[in-house]
């Protein structure tokens, strides 16, 4: 393992690549920094695209196949752009009993998106989570990072409509 002296050229002039480069440098520019680097890309750009994945693979001298394998393995990473707002519906045991499926079908009915999908206008992404640890609030939903509990399909749809304007 020899330290890399010449850094690969970033794919564009975008200043955000500097954040990615810093993450890689901090972790020794080596293949073991892969997950950390992908986290950085995900947080900075919001998703992982082909260009970013190739750049990471090249910079960390890791096969692109490995990068794709890791990126598709973890639910945290998304390969497509996410909407402006996120709505995480908990489908854990408690929320399931309290009607999480009704919430999901209400969202599907009102906005036409199923878990893992984003609306065509890029306003809303719906994600289903296995348990968000707020079982006392079942059925619970996280809208843009704020946990909301004891929801009925109507209140959820009204709340989401208010959020996305």
């Amino acid at each position, binding site marked *: 393992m020899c330290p890399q002296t010449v850094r690969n050229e970033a794919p564009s002039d975008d200043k955000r690549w500097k954040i990615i480069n810093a993450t890689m440098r901090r972790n020794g520019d080596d293949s073991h920094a892969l997950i950390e680097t992908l986290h950085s890309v995900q947080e900075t750009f919001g998703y992982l695209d*082909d260009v970013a994945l190739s750049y990471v693979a090249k910079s960390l001298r890791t*096969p692109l*196949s490995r990068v*794709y*394998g890791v990126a*598709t393995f973890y639910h945290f990473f998304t*390969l*497509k752009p996410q909407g402006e707002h996120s709505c995480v519906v908990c489908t854990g045991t408690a929320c399931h009993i309290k009607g999480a499926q009704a919430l999901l079908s209400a969202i599907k009915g009102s906005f036409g998106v199923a878990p893992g999908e984003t609306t065509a206008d890029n306003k809303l992404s719906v994600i289903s989570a296995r348990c968000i640890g707020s079982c006392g609030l079942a059925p619970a939903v996280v809208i843009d990072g704020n946990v909301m509990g004891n929801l009925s399909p109507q209140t959820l749809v009204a709340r989401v409509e208010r959020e996305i304007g």
Partner: protein
Amino acid sequence: MTRITLTIDGETVQADEGTSLLEVARKAGADIPTLCHNEQLKPHGACRLCTVEVVKGKRTRLVASCAYPVEEGLVVRTSTVEIEKHRKLLVEMLYPTALHLAKRYGITKSRFEAERGDCNLCGLCVNYCREVAHRNVLYFEGRGIDRKVAFVPGKAQECSSCGACFELCSGGFVVTNHGTVSLNERI
């Protein structure tokens, strides 16, 4: 290299340290079925068909022989009622792939919902691509029930000039799909 003495199906055999149980047992004449094993590759341990019974002290365990290095004084049984039952169940779950094994175990239908017939995720192509061909075109995408073999976008045409894994693939997945799958099509 240290020689190790162990017992396989009642016969005492000797083997070099570091060799796998599967290799030693096959050399000793045992007929152990495998799916994901290939001598050129590192043990993958995915198919579990090479499962054997290992007696160590008072404990008896079922282990995947391809990934189990020989140990001094080990007592190994390669075919018992329990092992055959285990293998038969695995082959049934693999159905409708691995038909040569299905024939051997007399399986003509499966109690489990049939998945795709051209790939059973044995990993031979992925591992061969990485370890022997050094091309890194193939990878496992996703996980759990969503796991599948995929091609790195833009690299799949390399398969036309290599194709070394084509004959390893029993279901024909790589042969029929190389060059047809891209990331943009998937999402």
